């Protein structure tokens, strides 16, 4: 009846003892955890700093496209990763955010919210992304008043209610599936055609309480104290109309968590970090992997692989190009 998702802790006392790290990884999602594994295996003095271990895996109910697992819950995949790197004693400082990163050439100083100041020869940014907003009238006003960006967290509030899901990618389709046990009626609204995997789309065909509006753009979120509806533009007929609803789940992708290093490295127009073939940013010694980078396919397995690539490249950089002591 009840699950108990105990977060596996690792020893964080070492963060008060190490004078200079070879590599500090910011972020505890797939990219950061795999980088920790690869760096430790290379013998680097490596640590991970993350507010929450698992990253966006925790916002995903089921993962069914990670090789080796037919179907696994996001939190279980995260725990599987964590179990693996805990076996190698990779130190993790969890529960705190990084407040600032300063380049003190050739090293970096990392300041955490809980007051630690750490020095590292290299940094890997693996901070992933956060939910992208629609950027339309009513979105800020009704945040948490009927609007949600996390189906796994908030689905119980839509018990026996009507809910609209905005988006047409895998996350939006998974959001629909998360809402099925709770909502009375679900309407999926997307401005163009589906981008989700065919295998997921097939699952939608059997949901009787689902209505789908493609080529339909959401123009505004309406309501009084709480959300009561959305105004949409049907792009085929060019006509506007209102769809009533009790809630709105927005699943239209992510924006990169690059704000900490925006002034330090080159980013593209979407604020995604630009990296070279070795995951190095425009700043010597600073690397980036996963959804924070400009690579277009935001997938767990790609983030994981980029984490490995960065750790190996860090090792090479420290052996061949690092100018400090």
């Amino acid at each position, binding site marked *: 009846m009840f699950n108990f998702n105990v977060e596996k802790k690792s020893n964080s006392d070492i963060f008060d003892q190490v004078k200079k790290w070879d590599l500090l990884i910011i972020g505890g999602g797939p990219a950061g955890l795999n980088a920790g594994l690869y760096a430790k295996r290379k013998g680097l003095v490596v640590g991970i700093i993350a507010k929450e271990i698992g990253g966006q895996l925790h916002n995903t109910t089921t993962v069914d496209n990670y090789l080796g697992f037919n179907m696994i819950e996001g939190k279980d995949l995260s725990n599987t990763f964590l179990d693996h790197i805990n076996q190698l004693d990779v130190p993790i400082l969890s529960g705190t955010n990084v407040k600032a990163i300063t380049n003190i050439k050739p090293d970096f100083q990392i300041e955490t919210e809980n007051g630690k100041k750490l020095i590292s020869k290299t940094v890997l940014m693996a901070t992933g992304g956060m939910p992208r907003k629609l950027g339309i009238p009513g979105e800020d006003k009704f945040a948490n008043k009927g609007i949600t960006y996390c189906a796994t*967290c*908030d689905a119980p*509030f839509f018990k026996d209610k009507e809910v609209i899901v905005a988006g047409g990618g895998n996350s939006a389709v998974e959001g629909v599936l998360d809402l099925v046990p709770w909502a009375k009626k679900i309407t999926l609204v997307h401005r163009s055609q589906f981008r989700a995997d065919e295998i997921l789309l097939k699952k939608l065909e059997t949901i009787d309480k689902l209505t789908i509006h493609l080529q339909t753009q959401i123009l505004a979120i309406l309501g009084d104290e709480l959300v009561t509806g959305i105004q949409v533009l049907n792009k085929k007929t060019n006509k506007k109309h209102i769809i009533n609803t009790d809630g709105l789940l927005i699943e239209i992708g992510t924006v990169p968590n690059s704000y900490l290093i925006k002034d330090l490295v080159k980013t593209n127009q979407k604020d995604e970090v630009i990296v070279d073939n070795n995951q190095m940013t425009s700043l010597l010694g600073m690397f980036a992997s996963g959804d924070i980078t400009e690579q277009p396919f935001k997938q767990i397995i790609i983030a994981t692989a980029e984490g490995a690539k960065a750790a190996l490249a860090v090792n090479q950089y420290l052996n061949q190009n690092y100018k400090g002591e």
Partner: protein
Amino acid sequence: MAKLLNEDATKQIKEVLQGMVNKVTMIVFTKKGKCNTCKETKQLLQEVKPLNDKINVLEKDLEDDLDEAKKYNVTLAPTIIILDKDDKYQGLKFTGIPAGHEINSFLSAILTMSGKNIEIDDKTIEKIKNIDKAVDIKVFITLSCPHCPGAVATSHALAYLNDNVEATMIEAQTFMDLAREYKVSGVPKIVINDKYEIVGNQPIDAYLKEIEKL
């Protein structure tokens, strides 16, 4: 009765509780008749108790032990409060079962009340200690929310460090009417003195900013 904690969870919880410094006493308030998750909450505490000999558990009834309930400002069942080694209540409260992801904030509260050091910088601790008004923090959560334990732990840290602050985790699915009253549709939702709101697992400075407005 089937156990709530499986072998793996029991082992992990036992490991975490090895970090306890001093003894704690947990009081669980339940009530007779219809009481959603009361039985399970009591059972959870009975299963956690043998995992560390520094844990003491007392069971109380919301009506039969009214004076005790009033003393700790408990009005809903189930509610768990945690007392320190000197049986002092510092405002750390759980209304509803801390299962799912929330087991982590529950373990964190036990460790904190046992005297384990909270990792907050000195400047922030000073700010927290200077709070001189009564502050009531409600943290609405769901058991499937991975971002919620962090928000509960932050509000509990504020309560632990200042006697004027009381912080209550509220499990929204069991107390859905209360959640609707506070217009909760996303969690974690933090309500301060029924007046100011924060959404999400925010840093402690965000709480202090709202508290300053009181």
